[in-house]
């Protein structure tokens, strides 16, 4: 007897329904991702110059191995990791704190929540430009304010030590509200029953937070961190507009390095290789992250 015949009627229908629910999304994504993925992989294994397309030739793994010789690639790799981990860590800590702060019944709470989302709404290009101005040495807003207060100031976006922190600051400013609001949604989905029960049991606010709420919003928290981590590694708009990788290459994240390699130097093969290295990096990070989490589950 076949398995299908042994399954009760409603189980088979369940499978069909599941397929119908999942199918459209999966098919859509499949259709749109196959061609670009294969094409960009193909480019990565070829010498493909944007300016000499008559000279396209197979390059094997050359584009990838050449990266190992490139000092800038190594610098870019480190910069990207430093940026991603710092930004996400700060966003998580601050975001959680702000979510707790805003999770209260008070008049105007929803106004505050609405206002807080503004940083996320503003185009990263516009925000990057604004921050570039605020953090400009000599004529920037921050420099001006600090000089007026007779405080020592720095070269910010043009300083080798401060450029990356300033970019991280900009990213944190823009995305912490995102983390905060998602966590807030999660917190507010926790039923009042549960929190009331905890209060009746005599738990303090702090204990309620750590022992009841936090574990309950764990799925949402994980997804938010994962999404932010992935997006931070791929970040492009902000740094392109704020420092374009400078001074020198101190803020040259991988996406930017790929862009410059591809469109300024015309070396699309290497640019694609860099992009795929980024993909592998993210894959590894996500796998490690998820495994680490399932262990502590």
């Amino acid at each position, binding site marked *: 007897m076949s398995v299908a015949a042994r399954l009760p009627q409603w189980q088979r229908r369940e499978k069909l329904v599941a397929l119908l*629910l999942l199918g459209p999304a*999966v098919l*859509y*994504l499949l259709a749109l991702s196959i061609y670009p993925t294969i094409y960009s992989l193909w480019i990565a294994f070829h010498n493909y110059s944007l300016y000499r397309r008559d000279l396209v030739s197979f390059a094997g793994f050359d584009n990838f191995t050449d990266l190992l010789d490139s000092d800038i690639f190594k610098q870019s790799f480190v910069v990207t990791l430093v940026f991603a981990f710092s930004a996400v860590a700060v966003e998580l800590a601050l975001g959680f704190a702000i979510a707790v702060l805003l999770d209260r*019944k008070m008049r105007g709470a929803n106004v505050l929540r609405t206002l807080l989302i503004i940083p996320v*709404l503003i185009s990263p290009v516009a925000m990057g430009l604004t921050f570039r101005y605020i953090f400009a040495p000599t004529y920037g807003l921050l420099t001006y304010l600090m000089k007026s207060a007779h405080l020592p100031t720095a070269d910010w976006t043009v300083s080798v030590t401060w450029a990356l922190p300033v970019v991280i600051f900009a990213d944190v400013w823009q995305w912490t509200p995102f983390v905060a609001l*998602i966590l807030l949604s999660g917190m507010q989905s926790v039923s009042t029953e549960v929190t009331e029960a905890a209060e009746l049991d005599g738990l303090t606010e702090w204990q309620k937070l750590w022992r009841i709420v936090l574990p309950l919003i764990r799925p949402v928290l994980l997804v938010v961190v994962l999404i932010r981590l992935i997006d931070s590694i791929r970040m492009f708009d902000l740094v392109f507009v704020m420092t374009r990788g400078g001074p020198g290459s101190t803020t040259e994240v991988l996406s930017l390095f790929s862009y410059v390699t591809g469109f300024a130097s015309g070396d699309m093969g290497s640019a694609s290789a860099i992009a795929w290295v980024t993909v592998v990096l993210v894959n590894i990070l996500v796998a490690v992250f998820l495994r680490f989490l399932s262990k502590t589950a």
Partner: protein
Amino acid sequence: MTAQQAISSAPAHDRAAAQATKGLSFRPTLGNIGAVFVVGLWLFPVYWIALTSLKPIVEINNAVPIFIFTPTLENYRELFTKFDFARVLMNSLVIAFVSCFVVIVLAVLAAYALARMKVPGEKHIALWILSLRFLPPIAVAIPFYIQWQDLNLLDTYAGLIIIYVAFNLPFAIWMMRGFLADVPVALEEAALLDGLTRLQIIRRIVVPVVMPGIASTAIFTFVFTWNEYLMALMLTAFKSVTVPVTIAKFVQPYTILWGQLSAAVVIQVVPMLIVVFLLQRHIVRGMTLGAVK
């Protein structure tokens, strides 16, 4: 009490909850003051932008930041006369709304299947969907450009919408998957026993409960689409050009048109704020779970 009845009572509960906040006052506790202070301080760069949008150009290009000046609406006017901003705004709105709508519909269904139903290889499928977000857009810019050119989709609404749905679906599915995992299974099990179909369960039981999650995901999908730059740059010309690309045009070699840029940002933010404020109603605590007794 059947699940059916539980849900019928939900709207009343929600209304009550919503009204409950109306009666609240603002008590100047440390926490409340802190909340206002944090949000107020956080928004400082936004004030600066709003301020700049009202400054005349010569005062913007000053070595020293100017705080006191005669405000002018000249920047806003130039935006609409010189840069065709009304159409650009309309383009962005339509593209973002439609993309968001399609994404939410597909994502809620797909996420439900992944979170609740026994799908073979569920973990692998979910990870594959997430992995689509790994590739930096720069790698797919050229393939998409060439493909879109052949399909005559360049500089159209449909061309961008198709891309944005694909770009945002993974995020939406994963977000909804997270929110759906939070929903207690008991509700649905009761409904299943009552003989409701899956679709009915989704529509009548699950969606109302997970509304905060849907609202959040919708907001952020909208925002990602609204602010997306690289693909819009590559795939539009002038018929369907969007706000971020137009904003980038204000960075001109000889000067950054700060006035128009700030004005554009202000205009861009206001409608979104309205939408978000309206959706706030759904991010309110304690919706229907109390109904399951």
